């Protein structure tokens, strides 16, 4: 039985809405199996999709398996187009209540797991700080102060200029004339009373799927207090923005019309009100939020004054970057990316022309789009390095803040003991997280965790961390998949298990980018000509060899019969590259050798009719024609 595309395409309707986690939702979810490729996941990958959200487990550095949530259309774009991997989707029928239970389980885990890793990071920061302090002759300890790096340190000639007089006035009206004095006193007292956790302090061990209680981190609290003090300094002193954090350019794309200027002026008024509120806020980390609000007031004022968008540099200091020499390899892609960034900026600017008051989320979207556009423009026009970042870009450039002596009057051996205790606490927490989330190829991987979460979501009682409880899954999904049984931890066998155990009402495949492009070529050209031209990386018009892929000559993902023959040639190519790499070793360049060895390894399965390597793409425009729809099968 077959369904037409009208139904099939629902599976991958981009931007499909998703119901609230607690509301009755659509009566199905999608189980996604992503075929293997070299690099990211040579064993294949799986994900579970709830409308616009796709959840999947990724193997992180440090041997951890972490849950990730992506926008569904971006997930499909990344895997099928950039990574050139077909996705096999199975739609599973469920009741709205079951849908809500499943989605809530994954959503919950996302925030609770993230909190546990944040606690680990704060424990490790305490450890690092105390260890450094223990070193003889060490420099005064510093902690990074979020958003403090957006402002220049005023020099001796700087005089308070009243730049934020309206904020101060509003804060005094709201919280009393002495609010700034009171806040400074609070900060000074809290800094003086900061305590290093004693050697006896013990963290409650993290539990799966539970809110983790977090003891106060010495480093985090110190940073918060210093951020607050810096924010008050900037507020009262009119601290200037650093010249290198303000981004603008004489470009038409940044020119503002009167309506947009009016919208920004209104936003500035609102921002002043909010900055005043933050002065009296009870949240512990109000300092960094106040710093950002003040910095944004500065760029908005410049935008209004010049009728040209000026934005804070929103990239993280450690953002990955492509140096100019590396960008040469992407010369043809840069203009395409710039066009896309220009379109994104134009879309983000639409909020300036609407009637609704600009919210922070809207302004962040505008900042993000503007930063990406300016970054790509600088790389294209001036050959600058290109910084890379996904997601919303929230300006947060940090500056080091010097701590008072963290352990005054404490003997060196006692300091060492405190440092040792901090190290023990961080190590124990890391060990527990490793026990809960440590990646294991066979027992805890992207497949096993999805099925465990499904079973736990539908179990009568939360049995997290215990044996698989199948009762609820059996009742609600028609079956239960134990990843430990019958090799079902392997992605493609797990996909078969889904078809066998759950109530799958439809299945579909989204072809890889190359498969889709090939299908279109076969439809309009001579088959033999297409095959001969596109079967290899030299004459292919779809694919260009790239350093991220291992060296190979023939594609083997779209052909079965010739796979061993092509694989043998690829093996020779891999061995040849390895040999050339050996010759380059004396120059200190091991890159070619490593790529050659990888090419050799990924050619071996091809000799036995198995394909892993498919090639990948640095960029595929999101405006590229969608892959052709393949027939959708309904399993009876």
């Amino acid at each position: 039985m077959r369904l037409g595309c009208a139904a099939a395409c629902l599976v991958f309707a981009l931007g499909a809405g998703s119901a609230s986690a607690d509301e009755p939702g659509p009566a199905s979810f999608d189980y996604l199996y992503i075929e293997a490729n070299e690099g990211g996941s040579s064993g294949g990958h799986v994900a579970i999709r709830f409308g616009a959200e796709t959840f999947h487990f990724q193997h992180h550095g440090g041997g951890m398996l972490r849950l990730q949530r992506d926008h569904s259309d971006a997930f499909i774009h990344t895997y099928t187009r950039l990574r050139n991997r077909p996705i096999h989707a199975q739609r599973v029928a469920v009741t709205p209540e079951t849908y809500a239970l499943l989605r809530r389980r994954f959503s919950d885990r996302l925030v609770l797991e993230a909190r546990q890793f944040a606690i680990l990071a704060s424990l490790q920061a305490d450890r690092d700080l105390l260890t450094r302090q223990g070193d003889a002759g060490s420099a005064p300890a510093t902690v990074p102060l979020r958003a403090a790096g957006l402002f220049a340190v005023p020099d001796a000639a700087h005089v308070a200029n009243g730049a934020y007089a309206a904020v101060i006035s509003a804060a005094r009206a709201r919280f009393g004339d002495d609010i700034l004095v009171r806040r400074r006193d609070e900060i000074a007292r809290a800094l003086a009373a900061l305590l290093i956790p004693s050697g006896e302090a013990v963290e409650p061990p993290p539990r799966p799927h539970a809110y983790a209680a977090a003891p106060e981190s010495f480093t985090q609290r110190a940073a918060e207090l210093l951020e607050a003090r810096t924010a008050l300094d900037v507020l009262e002193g009119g601290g200037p923005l650093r010249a290198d954090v303000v981004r603008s350019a004489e470009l038409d794309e940044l020119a503002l019309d009167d309506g947009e200027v009016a919208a920004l002026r209104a936003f500035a008024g609102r921002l002043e009100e909010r900055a005043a509120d933050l002065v009296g806020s009870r949240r512990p980390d109000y300092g960094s939020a106040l710093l950002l609000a003040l910095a944004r007031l500065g760029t908005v004022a410049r935008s209004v004054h010049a009728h040209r968008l000026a934005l804070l540099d929103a990239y993280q200091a450690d953002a990955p970057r492509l140096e100019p020499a590396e960008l040469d390899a992407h010369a043809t892609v840069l203009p395409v990316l710039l066009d896309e960034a220009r379109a994104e900026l134009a879309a983000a600017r639409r909020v300036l022309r609407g009637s609704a008051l600009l919210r922070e989320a809207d302004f962040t979207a505008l900042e993000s789009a503007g930063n990406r556009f300016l970054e790509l423009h600088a790389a294209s026009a001036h050959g600058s390095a290109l910084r890379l970042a996904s997601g919303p870009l929230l300006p947060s450039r940090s500056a080091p803040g010097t701590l008072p002596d963290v352990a005054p009057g404490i003997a060196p051996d006692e300091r060492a003991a405190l440092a040792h205790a901090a190290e023990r606490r961080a190590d124990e927490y890391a060990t527990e997280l490793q026990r809960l989330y440590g990646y294991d190829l066979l027992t805890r991987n992207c497949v096993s965790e999805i099925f465990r979460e499904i079973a736990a979501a539908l179990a009568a009682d939360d049995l997290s961390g215990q044996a698989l409880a199948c009762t609820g899954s059996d009742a609600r999904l028609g079956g239960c998949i134990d990843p430990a049984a019958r090799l079902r931890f392997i992605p493609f066998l797990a996909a078969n298990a889904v078809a066998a155990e759950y109530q799958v009402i439809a299945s579909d495949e989204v072809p890889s980018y190359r498969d889709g492009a090939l299908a279109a070529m076969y439809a309009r050209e001579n088959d033999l000509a297409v095959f001969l031209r596109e079967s290899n990386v030299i004459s292919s018009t779809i694919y260009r060899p790239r350093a991220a892929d291992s060296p190979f000559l023939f594609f083997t993902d779209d052909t079965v019969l010739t796979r061993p023959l092509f694989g043998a040639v690829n093996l020779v190519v891999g061995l040849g590259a390895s040999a050339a790499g050996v010759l380059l070793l004396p120059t200190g360049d091991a890159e070619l050798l490593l790529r050659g060895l990888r090419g050799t390894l990924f050619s071996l399965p091809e000799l036995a009719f198995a394909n892993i390597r498919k090639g990948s793409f640095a960029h595929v425009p999101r405006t590229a024609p969608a892959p052709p729809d393949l027939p959708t099968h309904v399993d009876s």
Partner: protein
Amino acid sequence: MSNRAMDNVGRFLAAAAAAAVLSLGCSFSDSSKSISDSISGSSGSISDSSTSSSGSDDKKSSQSEALYREDVRNYTAAYVRDGGDVASFQRGLGSIAREHGLSDWEAAPATWTGVGEGLKRAAASPQQLDTMSRELAGDDVAKQREIARGYTGPG
């Protein structure tokens, strides 16, 4: 042997080869990024939806806000259920907000609605509602109203 069977055998061999030779299973989180990460959306953080260039900006924006509210709700429900101190809870709220592109989470009504919904989901008593309202919102009537709206609403 049918095509499907051959396909399965091929995939099994591929998976076995990958596992045996490379010990690589699931997708690896790649911190090095590709050039496609120079624009939003390609890497797919759910919060990217607010910057999408597609036509339905309003819908995407409200969807993004709804996801933020849900994260706050889920986080609040777990906090109410398992306990902890308020300052630490607020720091967690700050982290969630930053993921969604917000630094001033106190100014976002969705924060307070989400807190109210989380209290409801955790089956918090009216006394717990009052206590948490006071601890988080102080005497700010607008925030308290949003919390109450989330607590009594359908979400």
